[in-house]
């Protein structure tokens, strides 16, 4: 996708791919399995820069075709470079940060008011937590006891121009969320089993409060030369780096397969 479209934002997508995979595979109720299903749980990608990871999952679900993916970013196509609510299955239009979580709060709150069983999972970037509305949304979600809302912080420690701790120091995200009234867990965001357990635990907790997971992640996880290197927020793949990256991903896949 990134190679075909000659796009950046590879690293932010690699940071959340396991989170998305676990959610789609085991935790999201997909209703009748189509993106238009009215009973479907909501997945809000508030950090819209990671959209390629979500497109990849939607492809696996059959919501997007291989041709859709191969034409990502090109003229006259549906898939834009940042998350866009006009794509069926994508809830919010992001790219401008700090929007998605509030919409997710509205979706979760609507489900409560309407008495549906829908849940909402919102993925927020740690860099995105610079934005004021994120904190407004935390207050609101806790005040209205949105127990069907799970916020997952993609805590990769990097934002567009540098380390989060150097740009605007966040300190302990888990402690902050706990203080805001969220039932919170911290996990390795690339460990699918750990994510699975944390999500199951939070689902079982019988507390009238929203839930949160602080997922410790690495921007560009999975490819050695993209790993934790912020230039890959911007860099486009060349034929050489494309081959090298695909080679690493394939061998990782094989080693995962041989372990399981």
């Amino acid at each position, binding site marked *: 996708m990134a190679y075909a479209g000659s796009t950046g934002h590879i690293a932010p997508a690699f940071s959340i791919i396991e989170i998305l995979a676990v959610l789609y595979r085991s935790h999201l109720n997909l209703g009748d399995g189509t993106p238009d299903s009215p009973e479907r749980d909501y997945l809000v990608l508030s950090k819209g820069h990671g959209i390629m990871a979500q497109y990849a999952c939607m492809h696996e679900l059959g919501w997007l075709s291989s041709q859709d993916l191969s034409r990502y970013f090109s003229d006259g196509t549906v898939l834009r470079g940042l998350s866009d*609510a*006009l794509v069926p299955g994508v*809830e*919010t*239009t992001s790219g*401008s940060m*700090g*929007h*998605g*979580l*509030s*919409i*997710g*709060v*509205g*979706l*979760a*709150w*609507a*489900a409560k*008011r*309407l008495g549906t069983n829908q849940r909402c999972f919102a993925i927020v970037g740690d860099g995105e937590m610079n934005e*004021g*509305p994120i904190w*407004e*949304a935390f*207050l*609101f979600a806790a*005040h209205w006891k949105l127990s069907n809302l799970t916020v997952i912080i993609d805590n990769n420690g990097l934002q567009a121009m540098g380390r989060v701790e150097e740009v605007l120091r966040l300190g302990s995200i888990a402690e902050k969320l706990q203080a805001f009234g969220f039932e919170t867990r911290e996990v390795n965001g690339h460990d699918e089993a750990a994510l699975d357990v944390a999500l199951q635990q939070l689902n079982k907790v019988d507390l009238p409060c929203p839930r949160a997971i602080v997922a410790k992640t690495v921007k560009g996880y999975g490819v050695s030369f993209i790993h934790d290197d912020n230039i890959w927020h911007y860099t486009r793949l060349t034929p050489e780096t494309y081959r090298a990256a695909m080679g690493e991903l394939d061998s990782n896949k094989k080693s995962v397969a041989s372990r399981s």
Partner: protein
Amino acid sequence: MRDAFSAALIKAAQQDERVILLTGDHGYALFDDIRRLLPDRYVNAGVAEQNMVGVAAGLAKAGLRPILYGLSAFVPIRVLEQIKLDICHENLPVVMIGDGAGFVYGALGASHHCTEDISALRGIPNVRILSPADAYEMTRAMELAFAVEQPVYIRIGKCDIGPVHKAPIKYDWGELIEMRPGNGDLGFIATGSMVKAALNEATRWQGSSVWSAPSVKPLDIEQTTAICRNHRGIITLEEHSIYGGLGAAVAEISSTYSPCWIGRIGVPDRFAQYAGSYQYLRSEHGLDAAGISHQVDELMERVGHVHRGLSKSPRTEILASEI
């Protein structure tokens, strides 16, 4: 007009259980009735307007009919990007109320003045803009707003200046309401608080017509063109910047379909310099009766109007308390 808003809100909420009001910690006594009659349909979202708009978008996506209330300085100005991306991009049915538009909160200063809301919103696709002049137009505005499945902004300006209509009125999207018939050289098109001012100024101009434009977006192209065609000059009046508001909308249509002289009377391109009452700020910006007359005279001189002695007739004096 605010009583009409409150009554229309309760009616809409009683007729449709999906309707829910969110306020950004404003409208203290305004919501007494809905709080008493339909307490679960009233939500104070706190002084957190950006989140409030996003939440409303989420509610609307899930099938509810949220109505947002704020001072116009905050809704839409503070939350413009949320309105653009969260609501308008998906064309979601959210009604937004911006209260106290113009110089209503006179002495409080620039943070509470709002003379740019229409121009800020007009360029955003999908959103419709209503600017009622009195309680009757307000009642109809709420009916129209809940009858469409898309974003609507209702601008409430100075609302204690009495009605301009004598009875309930049905107008449609885009429609200009004829307040005073006339086929003379001059026509007035006004919105909101300035409809009354236009009616007063029109008494100086024999044969002039006056139109109220509660629907600023859309504004009916055919009807606007016909009005422009019927007069040599058109004066637009609004308690809003001369840029991007009703005057600009009329001028855009006129210049394309039926060019005529357009005099845009509104708030000049500057902030209020001093503290002052509503009346003081209107006059500071040339929007009191004398200021309006002066600007109309200037335009008509440019148009080459032969006064035929009419402008010598005594102007209807407007007491400050009446504007």
